């Protein structure tokens, strides 16, 4: 069965430092991959997505992610973290379920930003 693993429950990064959030997936076919961000008390907002082409994907708010098929990974990166990036981040894989499109989410990584 398809699954998404985010190995880090919490990550603390100093403001201005670089960030990498890990995501691994298990899926038989070529996956469609997404990163969403959830600020406290808010819904989820799409940061970026990958479905074909260039394996390095640029998103909003200065985030990028790289799809590595050989490692079944889709890690999210940002070169310099801002305090406003503190939030929970979810990786998800899109797949067809009985002919309909659904998303399977990882359990999330909470990003804390220290001054």
């Amino acid at each position: 069965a398809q699954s998404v693993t985010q190995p880090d429950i919490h990550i603390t990064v100093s403001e201005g430092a670089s960030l990498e959030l890990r995501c691994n997936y298990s899926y038989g076919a070529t996956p469609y991959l997404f990163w969403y961000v959830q600020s406290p008390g808010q819904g989820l907002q799409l940061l970026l997505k990958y479905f074909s082409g260039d394996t390095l994907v640029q998103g909003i708010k200065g985030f990028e992610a790289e799809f590595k098929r050989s490692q079944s990974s889709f890690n999210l990166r940002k070169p310099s973290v801002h305090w406003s990036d503190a939030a929970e981040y979810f990786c998800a894989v899109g797949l067809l379920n009985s002919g309909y499109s659904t998303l399977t989410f990882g359990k999330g990584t909470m990003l804390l930003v220290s001054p």
Partner: protein
Amino acid sequence: DAGITQSPRYKITETGRQVTLMCHQTWSHSYMFWYRQDLGHGLRLIYYSAAADITDKGEVPDGYVVSRSKTENFPLTLESATRSQTSVYFCASSVGRTSYNEQFFGPGTRLTVL
């Protein structure tokens, strides 16, 4: 205003009561979804709908009922609420059926069952 809205935003109810959570979207998206978010579980799909009058179960459908008589509305009903259904519920919509279509999320409803 355009977008996806949920009501109520907060709800406290008692075990055994029926509760309906509302979801409304103004984009005329075909697909709509209900998720629950619990600590340590991320988001889990409860039900989804591909169009009006077409619904299907997700990962955790037990204890929930959905309907979709109009494209823009997708209510979720807990017929007899239990404490285990205390959660944050998110509604989402998507324009199409392909797996790369982005889902747009509502702000969530925090439900507490006493």
